[in-house]
Structure formats: structure tokens, C-alpha cells
């Protein structure tokens, strides 16, 4: 097991329990889709893993290391092993694309190297290779805020990969993207995880999209895991348990409509070109 959460709990100062006793194991190469209504604790869960949010109780085992028990300095070293991809990209907008990708190396280089932007040659090479992999090598010198949403998220992916991570945490990667770009981003993520045998936890609102791309789905409700299984085990009654009552078939149908609309659009665009 690459990642193992044991009895992970988070209670905020206000007394709200965001996570209650979560146990979860993720083996190498597996992509887990984390679904659940807003406020169910999805975002808290993945942030407790790299301790952007401090867990109140429990263990976070990454390989042999318990991340929850680390001191500040050691935590920073261990964070290098975990790449994170954010909702709305969270790129530093006024820095160039290259600086954003290189910032994935911050945990490996000294302050002065990073301050003077004099990264080791291998880091720069890796950054170019990653930008090429996500199809943005020509945009290296542009400022991040000059890119479109989908391009920015691909820079976000390159930044996470620059860390040479052993685990990816992905927080709503497609929340601000259009359906087509969302699919491209999800496809890129799954390809990359397969190439590198990387495990990933992906928070995702869009259930059909999750079902299409991930191998395993975990449903969270009010800070507790209420479902853990393969995408096709995700029946109407399970969804109702996670989200509450709603007409799920209508949503599935919507999704099929969207897909056919997309194919149609693609065909039309090809005709113009």
C-alpha cells in the first residue's frame, strides 16, 4: 500500500467535525475518485494528507512514514513526495509558466537558488520535458495569467509532476472548466498516472465524469466513508445514500446528451477546418 489512512479525524475549532475516523488505503497506480456533496469533507480529507490542514487524530502513512507525526522541517521534506493539483489551478499568476513549473522543485533547492532562479540543469530539463508532455512547451516564457483555463490546469499538472511525486492529490481539477476541457484534463491525468504508476486521489463533483475515468470510487458523506467500490457498483441507491434523494437517471441521460453534442461539435469543427 502506498498510502494508508488510519482513523483520520478532523474537528475544526468551531466544533464542526469535518472528518470522522476515516480509514482508506490506496495502492500504487490506482486512481481513487472521491465524491460527495459540498461540505462532506472531501477537500479537508486530501488536505489532511499533506497537512495543509492539520488532522486532529489518526495516522497518514505514506510508505513507511507517518506524515501526521512529523515536525515542520521533516514535513516540508515529505511534502515533496506529494504533488497537488488544485481547483482553479492556483498558479502564481504573475510568474511565468516556467517559474510555476520550477516551483515544484522548491522543496529540493536552496532559498538562494530559487530566489535567483538558478535551478540545477536537470530541474530545468525536467521542466521542459513536462511542459512538452502537457503540450505547452511553446508557452514556457508566458505569464501564467495569459493562458486559458485548460492550459493553466495543464501547467498545474506539470508543476505537481516536477516534484517527482509518489502520490497525487487532486482537488476538483475540472470545477472551472468546460465539459470538453474537463475530459481532456481527466484523460491527461489518468494517462500520466498510468505512465508513472502513480496513485492519485481525485476530489470530483461530476459523478459521471468520475465514473468514466477512475478505477475506484469512494463516497464521503458528513465526514465518513459511506461507499467504496468500483464505478459500476455506484447504483442509484448508493448515490442516494451519498447525496440524498434526486433523479439520478436524468443526470446520466444529460451526460449522454453532452457526449453526443460534443461528438457533433467536433465533427462540425473538422468540417470547417
Amino acid at each position: 500500500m502506498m498510502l494508508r489512512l488510519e482513523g483520520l479525524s478532523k474537528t475544526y475549532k468551531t466544533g464542526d467535525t469535518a472528518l470522522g475516523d476515516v480509514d482508506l488505503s490506496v495502492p500504487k497506480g490506482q486512481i481513487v475518485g472521491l465524491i460527495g456533496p459540498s461540505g462532506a469533507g472531501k477537500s479537508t480529507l486530501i488536505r489532511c494528507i499533506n497537512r495543509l490542514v492539520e488532522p486532529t487524530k489518526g495516522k497518514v502513512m505514506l510508505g513507511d512514514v507517518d506524515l501526521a507525526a512529523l515536525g515542520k522541517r521533516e514535513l516540508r521534506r515529505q511534502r515533496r513526495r506529494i504533488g497537488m493539483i488544485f481547483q482553479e489551478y492556483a498558479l502564481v499568476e504573475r510568474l511565468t509558466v516556467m517559474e510555476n513549473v520550477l516551483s515544484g522543485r522548491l522543496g529540493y533547492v536552496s532559498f538562494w537558488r530559487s530566489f535567483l532562479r538558478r535551478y540545477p540543469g536537470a530541474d530545468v530539463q525536467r521542466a521542459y520535458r513536462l511542459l512538452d508532455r502537457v503540450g505547452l512547451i511553446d508557452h514556457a516564457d508566458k505569464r501564467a495569467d495569459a493562458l486559458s483555463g485548460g492550459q493553466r490546469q495543464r501547467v498545474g499538472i506539470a508543476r505537481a509532476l516536477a516534484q517527482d511525486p509518489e502520490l497525487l492529490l487532486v482537488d476538483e481539477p475540472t470545477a472551472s472548466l468546460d465539459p470538453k476541457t474537463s475530459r481532456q484534463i481527466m484523460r491527461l491525468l489518468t494517462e500520466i498516472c498510468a505512465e508513472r504508476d502513480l496513485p492519485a486521489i481525485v476530489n470530483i463533483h461530476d459523478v459521471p465524469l468520475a465514473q468514466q475515468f477512475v478505477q475506484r470510487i469512494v463516497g464521503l458523506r458528513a465526514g465518513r466513508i459511506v461507499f467504496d467500490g468500483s464505478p459500476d457498483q455506484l447504483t442509484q441507491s448508493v448515490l442516494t445514500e451519498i447525496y440524498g434523494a434526486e433523479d439520478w437517471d436524468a443526470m446520466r441521460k444529460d451526460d449522454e446528451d453532452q457526449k453526443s453534442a460534443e461528438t457533433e461539435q467536433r465533427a462540425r469543427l473538422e468540417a470547417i477546418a
Partner: protein
Amino acid sequence: MEGSYPSTWRRPPQILTDRRVRIGLQVGIAIYLVLAIGTLEVDWARVATGMERGQRFVMGFLQPDFVSRWDDILRGLIESLTMTLTSTVLGVALSVPLGIGAARNLAPRPVYYVCRSIIAVSRSLQEIIIAIFLVAMFGFGPFAGFLTLAFATIGFLGKLLADDIEEIDARQAEAVRATGASWGQLVNYAVQPQVMPRLIGLSLYRLDINFRESAVIGIVGAGGIGATLNTAIDRYEYDSAGAILLIIIGVVMIAEYGSSYLRKFLQ
């Protein structure tokens, strides 16, 4: 079915919902205003003589004399410009660490309180008061002025920088933190790019405030063009004083246009 809905709408009162309280308050303010104006004592005879002096002053303006005191004016101007530039540079250099220390989201609590206190002291003392104090300590001349302006710059820039840092986009900072970055790297990669344009803009703005202030604090003995202006007024040389004021206005205008152009360039 248009008929069943009202066709007029008025914005409901937002703060004082009670009509009587509202009217009472308006009447109260009107009465206070009348009474307050009634207590002002105006000595019209004094105003008449004052008008005459004012007229002489204005006439001096209309015939500014740049020539007869040109050496004094030039020396004062150069002194002021030197004072302005050096004090702004020192002030900015000190206010950056102070501003970072006074940002709640970057500094530990004790550091935050110390830095905020320094800023509060600097902001609560008006430049003239600091200048009087520093002139008493270091004697007449531009050195006291330089220290005054540097100290005032720290309060101004430190506070605005700290407030700006507290309002940065936290997601960008979170993303940098997640890579395993140290505190220094976080400041350099996530905070600096977000606050830099504003810091440059504020520094340029402070540069022209410092020039204007250098004219004011000169009057209490802190050197520069203000001292020259004070001397001219003391000698009743309103024509020279007029020339000095015109030069001050000119320099401030140049600084204003220059800095707004630069700020636009930095977007």
C-alpha cells in the same frame, strides 16, 4: 396578469428603519449645525486687513522672482530632492521586512504585534512633530529631515504593504506551500509576485509625498526647500516665496505625472 402586482417600488430604509427616529435625527443635526455656526466669532475688521496682506502675497505670486535668491532656492531644492530620494529608499528598505512582519498570515503572533506597534507609532505621529523632535536631537539641517521622512515612510508603506499581503490570493500561497517550499521561498514565490506592482506604485507615490513633506518640515528647521521658503516669508520677500511655491508645485506635478505613467506601465 400585470394588474395584480404593484407598479411602484421604493428602496426600503436600510439603517434606521423607524421613521420617527429618522426625522428626529435629521432635525437634531440641523439644530446642531445652526448652533455651531452661531458660536463662531468672526472679526470682520481683522478679515479686512488680512485680505490686504493676502493681496500682497498673491501679487508676489503673480510676479515671482526667481533671480535674486536663485542660489538659495537652488541649494534648498537640491537639498530637498536629496532628502526625498534617500529617505524614500531607506524607508522602503525598512518597511518591506516590517510589512512582512506585520502581516497576520505570514508572521508569528509576537512578531506581528511588535511590527504593528512600530507602524502604529509611526503613523500616529505627524511629520512636523517628528521633525521638531529630531531637529532638537540632531540640530537644524537636512539630516533631521531625512530621518523624519524615512520614519514617516515606514509607517505609511509598512501598513499598506502588510494589509496588501493579508489580502493576497491564499490559494496561490497554498499551492506553493504544498510543494514543500520553505517560508522564505513562500514569500518569494507566492507573496512577492502578488504584491510587487502595488509596492512599486506605493513607493513612487510616497516619493512625491516625501517631496511635499520636505517643504513643510523645512519650516520647523529640518532643511531643504521649506527652510528657504520660511526664510523668504520671514523677510517679507513674497516674490521669492512665490517663486519657491511655483517650483514646489512644478516638481510635484512632474512627480505625479511620472509616477502615474510608471504605474500604468507596471499595470
